[in-house]
């Protein structure tokens, strides 16, 4: 399934990229603008496909976890590097704090990164002023990862639904904030699969806090 969906996107994203870089000849500003829009839409479609494939696998119980020992701090640095430009674009402060007691983790690096990138991305998306921060603390044998933002927050009536698939699309927010509407349900399923959980606290117009607790996988 994955192969069939991604093969045509490879040429769509690839050729728009080649044209945008001017490798096939110069383009005028309007052509660049329209091609840029096509590229953004293709990228959005790719994100949607990836999320739908993930959720399908999770629901079918075919989802596999690949655990390895890895440097947690380094992984957070990688996340910070890749998301900083997005926050800068919106003039937001990004803060990353990792408890010095946290060193190596035995878990699925890609999936933990996926959860954190998803939550921080959401924070950036739904915050227009202020900050998005990630605090990681070691509590016993668990790491608590808190993603806090000073964004639009979530109304009490919506908070119990936000982990359900396509919730964002249901509420129509997606037209303002391009997303797949699947990110949070994937995060929740991943956290569970990794032996942990995810919780949310939020105040409308003040901000949101997502708390992910996962075992380090290392025994003392």
């Amino acid at each position, binding site marked *: 399934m*994955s192969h069939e969906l991604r093969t045509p996107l*490879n040429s769509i994203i690839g050729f728009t*990229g080649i044209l945008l870089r001017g*490798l*096939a000849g110069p383009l005028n500003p309007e052509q660049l603008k329209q091609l840029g829009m096509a590229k953004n839409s293709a990228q959005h479609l790719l994100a949607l496909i990836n999320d739908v494939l993930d959720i399908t696998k999770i629901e079918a119980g075919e989802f596999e976890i690949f655990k390895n020992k890895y440097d947690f701090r380094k992984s957070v640095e990688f996340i910070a590097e890749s998301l900083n430009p997005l926050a800068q674009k919106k003039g937001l402060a990004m803060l990353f704090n990792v408890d010095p007691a946290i060193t190596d983790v035995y878990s699925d690096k890609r999936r933990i990164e996926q959860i954190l990138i998803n939550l921080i991305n959401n924070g950036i998306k739904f915050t227009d002023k202020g900050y998005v921060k990630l605090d990681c603390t070691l509590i016993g044998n668990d790491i608590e990862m808190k993603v806090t933002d000073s964004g639009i927050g979530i109304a009490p009536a919506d908070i119990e639904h936000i982990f359900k698939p396509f919730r964002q699309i249901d509420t129509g927010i997606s037209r303002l904030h391009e997303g797949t509407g699947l990110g949070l349900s994937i995060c929740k399923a991943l956290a569970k699969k990794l032996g942990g959980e995810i919780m949310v606290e939020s105040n409308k117009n003040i901000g949101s806090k997502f708390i992910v607790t996962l075992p380090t996988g290392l025994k003392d």
Partner: protein
Amino acid sequence: MHYKILIIEDNEQNLYLAKFLLESYGHVVLTALTGIEGIKLAESSQPDFILLDIQLPEVNGYEILEKCKKNKQLFNTPIIVVTSYAMAGDRERCMSAGANGYIEKPINPDTFMQQIEEFLLN
């Protein structure tokens, strides 16, 4: 540095894409639509490295990878898998089969060559 590169890929659009991109950076590109054809071409032309798709007709990329690693003329030629499989475990499977790198499709034309060079250095 300019390379001689062999691309093994059965999708003609994707083949044209990778060829155009690499040629526009001055590299010499050879192409094959099947794995067996690719191995023959690799033996006769000795490319600097091979870009290999996994989903191929007749003989798939995993088998081609194994054949190359057992081939006296090719076992030293770096092979970078470029695939849209991208399922958990595929990267591990390719790397343990002897691939020197693994790039998921869709490729990013802005960083494709850089990714390849990083794999070649390791």
